[in-house]
């Protein structure tokens, strides 16, 4: 963006900045409330306490809305004065997030749960923001906006819940036929071992440290403390209710921060965010997709992955908030550099790199690339303070990388690996870079056109003059994000978490610029064609535009309803399955599928109920006992080790135990005949090379193994003669008690 726009200034008469931020708050409030309500509705008929849902909603509002109120109060009366970066809304949002994490840490340490206070602040802030916002502008627009936000929330949580990764009835699905994906079990097992033992580990045989970007697992476990629920249940509640609104609020916040700078160029002509149709069109197009989902998938653009990967959905908003905070810092730095500059460069920047690294390692690397790219182009490294900050950033990133990077994910140099192994048809390869980075290209092209840069030389000069810094950021993130997947084979299509980031950087910039381009376009049209009568003067270009927009709009609607439809169908299918288990024959009307008694009966009769229930019960073990306890499930207990009938899933079966019981396993590696994956931290354990023998399962042998790992208690879960499952505890030295 032009250098002269990055200055703080007095708001003009028609400044919409504060209103726009209120709009973001209302958007987040509506989205969080709708998702929470849908979560609650999806659990009708099951065990469905309101408290965790309300607490989670309160936390969500505290993180996304309270910073707006805090910012608004902080600038009250002196809005026109330069604002330090740490008082910017993005920085305050990061702070609110940190406060909730700290509050979560307090719970196990002190027994004090301040969620009531945080939630009260959240609800109060939401109410205040709503009152502030609703008094501005047309009520018709306000109502439409709220309806639109609610509809969008339905789509977003539909995407999150339309897979086997997350669902409001995750526990019930697990207990019914265990038809769940193993990824959440992996994440929750890490969260649980951090809770129980203070170590990041999957806990399959003791708790050896397992490198992974476990930041989101840790954060979710802290929020689960606050919400008063187990982590596995929280994984389907917390990320949708807290993080999805935060994700999109961060996108909008970055758009608003960028718009704040652009106003100098288009002074007075910009519409408020809620009436900025161009911005919302971009918002929906980029998120929901303008071509059918199958087409997006074919180009490796996976909307599902964005919202089902809690680490990505958590990391991206932090990434965007850091960029937004940096813009706030840079605006002020242009005028003066004070003490807060030192804090930003020497503390905030390195710290946030580490934080993003723990949340999603790809985001840390891209942030570092973008920062270094800009610093190098702007010759900023000549500034000693910035050079020192750069050294700190590199050092922090290096250490973080070492801690979180999973070596096994890097499967070596394989040209075009992402295209080859992620379902992109070979015939479509020539189109891949164009389609996959589509929105980045759109932004880059439109901005260069806006700047009237017609040749490479002109672009180079503009870049060096700092006129197209925004374009450079998008280009660096796009190219640097695209390269890893095309050079290295990153397991499980995780290269998407590099290459998709550009979409979320381009989106806020497109939203910030949409109105300007529309205004310029309208201006050009007015100059070229004089309007005539309504019919005769109707422009053919409008008709062409309509011809293109109609299929795009239809596709967006279809894309929008597909995921919620899938989630709804899965919920109904589970209920029907449980009804069948309960002995109900024949088709059951939709309205009758929430019978508490029938669902409970069906659940109790479900094939995997007793096993999962027994494991879940172990999670009730007091933390002090948990800390010295390991769980042992003998290989002879086929019901557990073959809970998934697909042989290729044998590697992931043991993760069920730590994810559901909160206890790490002892000697819990998969059976000897299992074709073990080298992912999911399994290389941290010694693979089984001989079948488990009777001598391996004696109390003495188990205690010896436990002792070697620093534990003094073993809980054995096994089949019993009179019931499905038996649990007995072995105190080491050997003392057995049965339950």
């Amino acid at each position, binding site marked *: 963006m032009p250098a002269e726009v990055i200055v703080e200034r007095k708001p003009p008469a028609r400044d919409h900045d504060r209103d726009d931020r209120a709009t973001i708050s209302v958007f987040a409030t509506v989205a969080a409330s709708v998702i929470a309500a849908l979560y609650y509705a999806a659990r009708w008929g099951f065990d469905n306490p309101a408290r965790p849902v309300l607490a989670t909603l309160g936390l969500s509002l505290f993180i996304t809305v309270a910073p707006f109120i805090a910012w608004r109060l902080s600038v009250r009366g002196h809005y026109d004065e330069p604002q330090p970066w740490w008082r910017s809304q993005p920085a305050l949002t990061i702070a609110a997030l940190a406060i909730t994490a700290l509050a979560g840490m307090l719970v196990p340490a002190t027994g004090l749960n301040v969620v009531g206070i945080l939630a009260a602040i959240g609800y109060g802030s939401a109410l205040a923001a709503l009152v502030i916002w609703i008094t501005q502008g047309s009520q018709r627009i306000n109502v439409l906006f709220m309806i639109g936000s609610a509809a969008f929330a339905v789509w977003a949580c539909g995407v999150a819940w339309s897979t086997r990764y997350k669902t409001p009835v995750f526990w019930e699905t697990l207990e019914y036929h265990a038809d769940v994906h193993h990824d959440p079990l992996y994440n929750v097992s890490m969260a649980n071992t951090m809770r129980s033992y203070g170590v990041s580990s999957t806990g399959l045989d003791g708790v050896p440290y397992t490198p992974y970007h476990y930041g989101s697992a840790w954060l979710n476990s802290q929020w689960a403390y606050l919400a008063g629920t187990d982590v596995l249940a929280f994984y389907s509640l917390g990320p949708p209710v807290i993080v999805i609104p935060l994700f999109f609020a961060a996108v909008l916040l970055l758009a608003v921060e960028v718009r704040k700078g652009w106003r100098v160029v288009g002074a007075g002509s910009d519409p408020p965010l809620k009436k900025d149709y161009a911005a919302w069109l971009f918002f929906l197009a980029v998120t929901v997709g303008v071509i059918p989902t199958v087409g997006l998938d074919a180009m490796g653009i996976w909307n599902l992955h964005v919202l089902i990967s809690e680490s990505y959905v958590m990391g991206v908003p932090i990434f965007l908030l850091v960029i937004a905070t940096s813009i706030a810092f840079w605006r002020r730095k242009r005028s003066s550099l004070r003490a807060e500059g030192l804090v930003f460069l020497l503390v905030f920047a390195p710290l946030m790199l580490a934080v993003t690294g723990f949340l999603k390692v790809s985001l840390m690397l891209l942030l570092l690339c973008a920062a270094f790219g800009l610093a190098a182009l702007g010759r900023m490294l000549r500034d000693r303070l910035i050079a020192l900050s750069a050294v700190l950033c590199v050092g922090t990133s290096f250490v973080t990388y070492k801690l979180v990077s999973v070596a096994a994910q890097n499967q070596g140099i394989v040209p075009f690996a992402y295209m080859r192994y992620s379902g992109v048809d070979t015939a479509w390869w020539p189109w891949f870079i164009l389609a996959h980075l589509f929105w980045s290209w759109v932004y880059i092209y439109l901005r260069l056109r806006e700047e009237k840069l017609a040749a490479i030389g002109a672009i180079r000069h503009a870049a060096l003059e700092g006129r197209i810094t925004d374009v450079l950021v998008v280009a660096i993130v796009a190219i640097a994000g695209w390269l890893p997947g095309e050079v290295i084979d990153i397991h499980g299509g995780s290269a998407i978490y590099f290459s998709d980031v550009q979409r979320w950087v381009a989106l806020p910039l497109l939203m910030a610029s949409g109105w300007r381009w529309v205004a310029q376009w309208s201006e050009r049209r007015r100059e070229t064609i004089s309007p*005539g009568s309504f019919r005769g003067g109707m*422009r053919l270009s409008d008709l062409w535009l309509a011809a293109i927009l109609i*299929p*795009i709009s239809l596709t967006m609607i279809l894309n929008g309803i597909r995921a919620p439809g899938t989630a709804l169908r899965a919920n109904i299918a589970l209920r029907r399955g449980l009804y069948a288990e309960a002995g109900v024959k024949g088709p059951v009307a939709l309205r009758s599928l929430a019978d508490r008694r029938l669902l409970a009966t069906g659940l109790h009769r479900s094939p995997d109920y007793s096993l999962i229930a027994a494991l879940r019960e172990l999670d009730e073990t007091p933390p002090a006992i948990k800390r010295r306890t390991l769980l042992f499930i003998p290989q002879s207990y086929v019901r557990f080790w073959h809970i998934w009938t697909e042989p290729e899933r044998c590697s992931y079966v043991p993760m069920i135990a730590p994810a559901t019981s909160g206890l790490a396993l002892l000697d819990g590696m998969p059976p000897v005949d299992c074709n073990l994956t080298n992912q999911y931290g399994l290389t941290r354990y010694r693979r089984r090379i001989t079948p488990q023998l009777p001598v391996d399962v004696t109390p003495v042998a188990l205690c010896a193994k436990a002792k070697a790992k620093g534990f003094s208690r073993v809980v054995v879960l096994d089949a019993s003669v009179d019931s499905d499952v038996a649990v007995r505890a072995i105190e080491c030295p050997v003392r057995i008690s049965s339950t």
Partner: protein
Amino acid sequence: MKSDDPSRAEQITASRSASDRLDGGYDTIVVASGIVSIGIAALYWVMRIGFEDSLIVVARPVGLALFISSFPFIANRGIWALGAEEQGVAPPWWGSYAFLWLLGLALTAVLGRLVPALGFSPLPFLTLVGVVSFLVIFARWITKAPLWRSSLVIVGSGVFSVWASGVVWGRIYKNPLFYENYILNGVIHHDSLPLAAIGNMLRTYHVATTGIDGLNHVPYHWGTPWLFAQWSNLTGTQVFDFYQLGFPVTMMSLFFGGTVAFAVAMRNRRKGPDAGQDLRHDFRFWFVFLAASIGIIPLSGLDGMGVWTSLLISESYTVAVPCGLLFLATVVAFYDGVSQRAGAGTGRARAVADSLFVLIGIPLGIVTLGYLKISLMVLGFALAMYALFRLRLYRRPLYLMAALLLVVLFYYTYGQVSLPAHREGISPFDFLWSFVRPAWWPFFLIVHLFWSWVYIAIRLRSEGVGTVADLKEAAAEQRILDVEAVALIAVLGIAPGFILHIDGGSAFYFSDVQRWLSVGLILSRVPIFFAVILGEAPPKRKRKPRGFLSRLDSVSLRQVLIVFFLLPVVGSMVSNGVAWPITMLRANAATRHALYPAAVAATIPSGLHGLPWLHDRTTLDEGLRRSPNFAVAEALRGLSALPASLRRHTALFIPQDQGAFWHSLTRPGACTFQPLLATALSSIAMIDGMPPYGCTLSRYYGFGSFTPRTRPQRAADAEPAVLCRRAAKAGMDRVLVLTFDGTRRATTTTVQCPPKS
């Protein structure tokens, strides 16, 4: 449609030599068409190495193709040399390149029809004319442009012929080893069988029928079977074989050459700056041509939108489209001639010719299209009616009479060529339901009619039409008749698939016509096309920058964008271009592999890598002899060698207990097509040849013209007296009974029926 800048156009046109103006790009069409024909024939020959593979057999259709493609050029020059040009401002419609090409086709068909009567084939003469003409045109052509441009066209045409071969032979519809595939395992597509059967019946009995139980008339657009039957006469081959070799060699060049010729005719008539320009001058022309033919997005994307680049498997469509375009170009030439002569004195001969063209030529041309492909007739009829009212031609008695005649002929022809089974009633969005995933429906109209949209948008823009008012004005001034024609064909073409159920995705043959019309028109305006899309190119710098960075700096964003978009487009074109030929070669290799003894085949790599080791004639021949359908195929084929005079009063009977024949086609549901194989291979009509009792009969392919079996065939049904009674109904007095023994050896028994009392 008016000239863009007549005064300048005339200056430029006048500055060119008369000879060049006459060639006007057509010489490139002759050269490219010839190379495509030769290329396809050569590939056919290569793909049959190791099998019966006579060079003479392959050369015959090449000679015919060269004659057909060079005839309009030499005839056009001949007419010009005779002074027709001087008779008026515009050349007469009958001297137009388009009409002469159609005339060439008709001439060869008539000559083919005369072969049985004459007792000899004039093919050697036609070949001589074709080859000499081609060589002369080629020699003149190559001197008229830089060698690298000519070389590119020659190499490009050669490569294009490989792609075109792949499209025709890449599926089991047609194949150089079609006959061998039947012998090997009976896995061949049934579509070629009824066509070859109809061709044979037309050739033997002069009746349009599949001949599976007598000679009941089968309503069908049998124009191509008839045409191919005549060309089979000329080339001395079986119709069955002509479909595999003769059709691709002669008709691929017609299809693409006809489209390009239409474009050149449309271009030259405007007398713009590019009128008469050599087609080697601007390679953007060929880029657009290839993009439209091969596709600019991957095949899976095109298929997903019901845009099938493998349309060349339909011989009726492949023949009808260029004929339709050439006919349209003839009509436009007529229109131009009439318009330019308006008010001026006209010779009596020309006036008579013009009147005959309106009264007979246009109606006959349209209904002839119906015999080639019914969809083309329907769309042509609609376009003619539109023109009648749009240009208010109904005010003139001659045109009104022609229209009335057209209506009558259309009605009659529709009944002749439309299969009743195909009229399956209203079925909303049938084509979409059948071939397009619902998620993609919203984009269907944009993608399926892509080239029409492109042409309409570009033409309107080039005409300065920016508003609906401008549009109305342009339409009122008749400046955009071409746009109206494209829109009409697009809308009417897409409608059947949206409304009716047409079996086998044949609605495509309505909706795809707009593609070739609009592509032809786009090609006629290539400079405008690119000017509108890319805008005006910035002026070139006088001094070129030195040094890498300076050069890089001088690269424009426009150039970067062009390359950026061109890369995936070209990538897809290359990918699409190789897909079909590779499929074709793989199929060829698979057939050879299967014919080799298992022990030997096991040592040879499968797929393309095995081809170099799979051409041993003896091994392949032994493989064929071992194959299950060898005896059946050879026996049936042997019958086709009987004199035509004998076949004409002979019927073929194959008892139902002859499993060797009745179970020789092995694809699921193939039992219904089994009798078609007999008539397609033997050229003799069957009696009592309906598929076995219990077989699920197809509703299509003319089966409705015959009575289905209501019970299994009994021994009494095969009694000579019964057979003779059946044969007599079909007007025959001789029955050949074909049976196979335990070792699958064929025995033919002749039943000579007593003369009618």
